[in-house]
């Protein structure tokens, strides 16, 4: 069987948006896909050393955010609300047996998912190669294009 390929561009660094790329990447690898994730812009936070378990959820601008009691949108902008929303979401994930971001990253690496950090974003944001977790390659748009050209599935998240 010729190997299927998938690439994902992970462009967001909030807790909720870190899940889909990693869930899909690990699952695709388990289904014998050759997988590449290209981390760019805020998505870079997912692979910064010590960041994986500190990603947060923005409680404002998200009408679907579940809250124990309905709160006016503006309350979400108050200091501390981000921490509350993040803690609440994490406890919901834990209760339902959802893996943490760092667990998924480990599983991705273990199953051979290729991780690429966007060098341009790193330069703009002052991120050094030593700030990025081990096992990540560094490159740019051409590197992603090369993988994407013969991939069956290419996602921008």
């Amino acid at each position, binding site marked *: *069987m010729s190997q299927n390929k998938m690439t994902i561009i992970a462009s967001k660094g909030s807790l909720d948006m870190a899940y889909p790329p990693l*869930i899909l990447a*690990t*699952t695709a690898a*388990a*289904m*014998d896909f050759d997988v590449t994730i290209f981390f760019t812009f805020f998505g870079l936070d997912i692979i910064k050393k010590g960041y994986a378990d500190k990603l947060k959820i923005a409680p404002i601008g998200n009408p679907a955010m579940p809250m124990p009691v309905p709160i006016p949108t503006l309350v979400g902008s108050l200091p501390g609300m981000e921490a509350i929303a993040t803690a609440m979401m994490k406890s919901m994930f834990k209760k*339902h*047996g*959802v*893996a943490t971001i760092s667990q998924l990253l480990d*599983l991705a690496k273990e*199953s051979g998912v290729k991780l690429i950090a966007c060098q341009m974003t790193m330069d703009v944001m002052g991120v050094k190669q030593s700030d990025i977790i081990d096992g990540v390659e560094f490159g740019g748009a051409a590197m992603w294009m090369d993988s994407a050209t013969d991939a069956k599935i290419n996602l921008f998240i």
Partner: protein
Amino acid sequence: MSAEVKVDQILDCKGMSCPLPILKTKKAVESLTKGQVLKVLTTDPGSKNDMSSWAKRTGNEILNVEEGSGTFTFYIKKTS
């Protein structure tokens, strides 16, 4: 099923959510030799369809699925 299936390994994924049951099943199946059977227990209602999609794509065979009191039991034969 009429005849009892000979199980070579049991994997308990009860309480785990997507995608962990699939990732752990993949790992367990890899540790088997062709023809051996893995029994997987899950409680994730999504795992029923997920497991069959996974098996289809990886060329492994689900011999049987049992459902009862919130638990799904899969018997997967390594065929690839």
